[in-house]
């Protein structure tokens, strides 16, 4: 393997920076050269893009909400039992 070539493993490590446009040009060149000829990494890249897109469409749920009445009731009765 050439020192100026990116391996599949290295690409996996660099993919976040690739998405964020944070790779230095020489590294970016090597990543893109790798992507030209590596179907597996292209597939991985596309899967990551699809995952990011899907996650971006998730609705925001409230993080704190009142417990269901049945839960509150069960907790209250457990407290009474311990008392």
């Amino acid at each position: 393997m050439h020192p100026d070539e990116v391996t599949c493993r290295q690409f996996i490590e660099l993919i976040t920076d690739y998405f964020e446009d944070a790779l230095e040009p020489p590294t970016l060149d090597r990543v893109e050269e790798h992507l030209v000829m590596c179907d597996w990494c292209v597939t991985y890249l596309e899967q990551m893009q699809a995952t990011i897109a899907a996650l971006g469409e998730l609705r925001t749920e409230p993080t704190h909400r009142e417990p269901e009445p049945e839960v509150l009731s069960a907790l209250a009765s457990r407290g009474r039992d311990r008392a």
Partner: protein
Amino acid sequence: MIAYKFLRHGRVGPFSGFAWPPPGGWVTAAETDRCRRGVHACRPRDLPWWLADELWEVELAGEVRVAGHKLVAPAGGLIRRVERWTTVAAREFADACAWRARDHAVRRLKLTRHPSDAVTLAACATLDDVLGVARGLAEEVVDARVSLTIAGDGAVRALTGAAPTSAYIAAHAAERLDGRDGYDAERAWQSRWLVDRLALGADELE
């Protein structure tokens, strides 16, 4: 400066997703020190690294920098599509590279004193044959196993139409035998093949 650029179907940049305007249109980049924001193209010698669906002749303007296997310029535009680069030509190139990987494995067999196996592999008439023979020999000939495996992989990738991968494999098959010089020579051979087959200007090949 006249250079070349591979694009996806519909004049789309393979990495940027940028849809290039048809010939006559001009693209400028605000800054070229960031790779993604420059106009990219390549010299004939760089073609094997960037194979894609469409090949275009482009004109670059402003200060043109060489960056690895690509050129980066502040502005550029498509001139004309290289019509000879077709799926058929890509397939022929992939096949040619796979045969070269086979030839390197034959040489390796000779160097490791397996002359009859070398003759068997050299006698293959199709890439299917290369695949079968190389895979079979790889199980038996330990000191040529890697070269034989590479030859088999090259045949597989050519048979599935993966020209960039076939070229990559052939270059590494050569490197296995002759080191970095072999790799460079193989890439140069690939560039010459493309220049000849596509009737490109070869001013910067050497």
